[in-house]
């Protein structure tokens, strides 16, 4: 299966949310990284046929997805950022209801629902009402509903938002497991989620693709270095004004700073191994740090 964005553009009035994207996706996990308002959700909504492009098109194996209509949605699974559900339904009933919408016949739906409940670890909560579930459990129901039709294309918009660290790790592993034999597009602004499971990372800013590649490739694409230094507390504000600070750690008598800079920022600074979080700050620093470069 091959998905292709061909000169894809989406405008809302005078605002361009997605700006002339040309990309191709095949099997694997694609991580979409960008600050809020970068156009990630708009791109995903177009991929899910919720929004029509202003210009350009998306093709699936050469066919326009909007012309494919139900045929395309049959192979699509989607977990929206704001996952809505019917609170009075039990987990099982909700999944059976979504199976109906996905056109799965009742017998196959019952089996599939049972399998998915088991897969996402909700066996004990299968007969619980949706409104009684914790945030993590709801997200798991969300991924289960997206997987009901065994989709070839899985689109996950901020799937780990609001989850505690344990749940996030579980969720990441689950996505990784589900990503075999399908195309997964995962959007988040939690860098570590993408770092672990994405085969290819796309960095998006102002609707445009800034960079794409594997985590290591993106790290190497940085034209600045990462430094670590211990400074007195009084000096921190002057460093924040001058450099992009990716981390600050208060310690006895001072602060350890992680600085992104081409030159050595301080005499005692030691060069450190860059991470994807540093890459994120390097590309999106201004927005991420409210203008002062700090995260």
């Amino acid at each position, binding site marked *: 299966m091959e998905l292709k964005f061909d000169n894809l553009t989406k405008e809302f009035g005078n605002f361009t949310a997605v700006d002339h994207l040309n990309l191709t996706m095949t099997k694997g996990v694609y991580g979409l990284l960008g600050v809020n308002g970068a156009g990630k959700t708009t791109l995903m909504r177009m991929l899910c046929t*919720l929004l029509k492009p202003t210009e350009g098109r998306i093709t699936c194996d050469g066919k326009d997805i909007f012309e494919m209509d139900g045929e395309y949605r049959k192979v699509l699974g989607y977990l929206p950022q704001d*996952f809505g*559900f019917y609170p009075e339904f039990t987990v099982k009933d909700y999944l059976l209801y979504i199976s*109906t919408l996905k056109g799965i*016949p009742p017998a*196959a739906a019952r089996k599939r629902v049972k399998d998915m409940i088991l897969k996402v670890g909700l066996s004990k909560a299968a007969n619980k009402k949706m409104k009684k579930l914790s945030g993590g459990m709801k997200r798991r129901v969300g991924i289960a509903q997206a997987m009901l039709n065994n989709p070839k294309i899985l689109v996950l918009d901020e799937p780990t938002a609001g989850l505690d660290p344990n749940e996030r790790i579980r969720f990441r592993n689950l996505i990784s497991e589900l990503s075999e034999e399908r195309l997964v597009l995962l959007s988040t602004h939690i860098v570590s989620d993408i770092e672990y499971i994405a085969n290819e990372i796309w960095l998006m800013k102002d609707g445009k693709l800034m960079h794409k590649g594997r985590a290591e490739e993106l790290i190497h694409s940085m034209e600045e270095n990462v430094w670590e230094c211990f400074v007195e507390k009084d000096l921190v504000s002057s460093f924040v004004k001058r450099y992009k600070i990716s981390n600050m750690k208060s310690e006895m008598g001072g602060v350890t700073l992680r600085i992104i800079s081409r030159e050595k920022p301080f005499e005692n600074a030691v060069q450190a191994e860059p991470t994807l979080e540093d890459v994120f700050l390097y590309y999106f620093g201004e927005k991420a740090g409210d203008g002062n470069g700090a995260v």
Partner: protein
Amino acid sequence: MSLEKQLRDYKKIREISPRENEILETVRKSGEAFFASEQDKVLSYHEFLWLQLKVVRKRWWVLQLILLFVLGGVLLAAQEDKYIQRSMGVAATLFVILIIPEFWKNRSCRALEVEAVSFYSLRQIYAARMMLFGIADTFLLTLFCGSVSFSLGVAFKELLVQFLFPLCVTACICFGTLCSRHILQEAVAVGLCILWSGVWLLIILNEHIYTNITLPVWAFLWGLALVSLFAALYRVLAGCNKYWEVSLDGIEI
């Protein structure tokens, strides 16, 4: 050796003791084969409609039925009071308001996005719900109008003007609000319906206005309401896939 003994021996020789494991394996494989063949099939639209019927909460139909019973009882108790007859419009508004929670369910629960990317589109989901509610409500209203007309002798013209016309206008308001691209709350629709109900009461209880509106005018208004209702229904179906066109990452622009 008698034939009987021979047969018994033969039966003993031919007796097969089934192995439990093999039976279970056969059952499992049959199940898998059945599941595999079912998975390739797609739910037909009438099956989809039937399953939608199972999902729709029947409590709203029960409440509609109770409302019509109460209205019938009130009309029976006040046969001679023409003002009470004219106040049927209030009940008509309530009758329509009762369908709002079920129709607005996917909007108020923010389940639109998940539903819209399914094999059966949002348009088909709304069409199914409209059809189900249409059938149920037409049945209830026919039953009510028929019984009131027969037992109380209320003329069809009166029912048309005092009950079905305000009902139709209320339905227009509801579906008009529902088809708005801006996600309006259920409360907005209910509020507009109640407002309309107040306006209607002012018109209908004012002898001067009521008596001056002639039958052709009522017929014209009734026809207009009906056309508007169909237009609103069409707009819901045509525009339901454009709900996301007004917002960017949840922010309306």
